[in-house]
């Protein structure tokens, strides 16, 4: 157990060095923050463009979910990127693969840095919303325990989906980076981060309802702001909403965990563990 923790810590330390040692602290912080703040400002710009017709409470729900989606964006894109970076930039993936650390532990350690950065940026996005865009909530009505459960389950699902993304990246060429970005954007659409899932056409809506993030974002809106955004999910009681979140999170985690090993074996079998691709 202590050896496992040591490996995890080493992977996290290495991840932090790779993430941050290319720049001075302040420069690094600016680069880290500028993208999520840009996205938050785009939402703000759209809200300003609509003007008085927009409903502030509804917008607040979308804005908060957008801040939480920072975890999904950073961890999913990041875990796929780790694979491409190690394989094609530094050409060290084969060394990591053959070392005793184990890919799963290594990826978890590297992901922990992404979690830390996502927390930092997510909080700043919320602060920007609070002070600049008027996205606020009543602290006394926040339901902390269900909110905490929803948050943890959403984060857990993100980590496990990250393993699957890393497995895919092992089999894909450099385009894995765009695919990971795309998956994050796809989830942005499919999980109704910035709109109610009710607005999605049939076919896509059914996909949304098997993803834990859909329930996670709705639960976070409900327990933090007092109301969700979806009329369909609004019919669920609190235990039902959390139950569906837990169920879909468990299924996704299981599939992603097994899926990673299948994909890793495939990459090894097809000789892609140390491929380099550039067009």
């Amino acid at each position, binding site marked *: 157990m202590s050896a496992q923790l040591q490996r995890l810590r080493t992977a996290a330390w290495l991840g932090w060095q790779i993430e941050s040692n*290319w720049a001075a602290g302040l420069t690094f912080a600016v*680069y880290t923050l*500028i993208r999520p*703040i840009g996205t938050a400002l*785009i939402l703000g710009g*759209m809200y300003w463009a609509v003007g008085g017709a927009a409903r502030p409470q509804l917008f607040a729900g979308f804005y908060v979910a957008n801040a939480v989606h920072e975890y999904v964006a950073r961890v999913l894109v990041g875990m796929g990127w780790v694979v491409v970076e190690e394989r094609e930039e530094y050409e060290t993936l084969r060394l990591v693969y053959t070392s005793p650390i184990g890919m799963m532990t290594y990826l978890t350690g590297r992901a922990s840095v992404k979690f830390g950065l996502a927390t930092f940026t997510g909080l700043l996005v919320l602060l920007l919303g609070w002070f600049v865009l008027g996205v606020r909530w009543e602290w006394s009505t926040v339901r902390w325990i269900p909110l905490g459960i929803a948050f943890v389950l959403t984060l857990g699902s993100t980590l496990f989906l990250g393993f699957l993304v890393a497995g895919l990246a092992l089999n894909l060429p450099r385009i894995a980076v765009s*695919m990971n970005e795309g998956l994050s*954007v796809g989830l942005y659409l499919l999980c109704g981060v*910035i709109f109610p899932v009710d607005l999605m056409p049939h076919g896509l809506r059914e996909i949304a309802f098997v993803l834990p993030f859909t329930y996670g974002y709705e639960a976070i809106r409900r327990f933090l702001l007092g109301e969700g955004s979806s009329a369909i999910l609004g019919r669920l009681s609190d235990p039902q909403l959390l139950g569906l979140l837990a169920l879909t999170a468990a299924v996704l985690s299981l599939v992603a965990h097994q899926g990673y090993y299948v994909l890793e074996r495939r990459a090894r079998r097809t000789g892609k563990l140390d491929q380099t691709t*550039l067009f």
Partner: protein
Amino acid sequence: MTTERIASDLNARGFALDLRAMYARCYVRLVGSVREPAWIIGDAVFPALGMAAFVLLYRALGAPRTLEAVAVIGGVLASFWTNVLWGMGAQLYWEKQQGQLALYFAAPCSRMAILTGMAVGGIVMTSVRALFGIALGFGVFGVRVDPFQVGELIGVFAVTMVALYAMGMVLASLFLLYGREAWHLCNALTEPVYFLSGMYFPLRTLGALGSVMAGVLPLALGIDAMRQVLLGDAARGLLPLRTEVLILIGLGLVLCVLARFSLAYLEALSKREGKLTQRWQ
């Protein structure tokens, strides 16, 4: 053979060589881009999904339908900015990481020819992929535009692309100096530029900031001009269309000249600082 004749012959040969280099780089980009089906999905489908999310946000907020069209037009052009950043700006950084950059600089052709080939290939590739966004926005989400003149649209699109990819060439030369900052800079220039160029909302919403950006970012002005062609007054354009086109032409010219000089200067600088072939930093 007179000296003038020899010089003219060499110029002609040099021009032919540059054309061939341009074609070759364009060919690699086009062939490489269709070789991996996953690449097509990554470049065509996923960016359009982000645009779809913004259309649905407008719908959820009860915005007028013209704002949905504003978001679709911006979303379609977003893929060109992504291509400029990652396919032009960061390309020389990728080449450096792969150890191929030195070959570009050792080749007898002009570097500008290579970058132009890269740009032409990028425009063709991204235009084809942007069709998916157009189909999604206008087909699936039922967004509509006013009747417009195709020639005018093509003209505005062309001047926008020239200015945009000329900016990409400037970025490419700048990135010669960069190590890992290149990747972070590309990330940093994505969403903030989307915001500053009014990608998903009328540029006029940004007030004075929007006017400043129109003078600096060809993307901002190009999107605004294309919206004016497609939506007329509903686009809430920043400046009259003719003025925007003239500014875009001016920006294109200035950026092309700037790219030529910055490439020469930064190539010399990165050689002096030993960064031209430096990898893994």
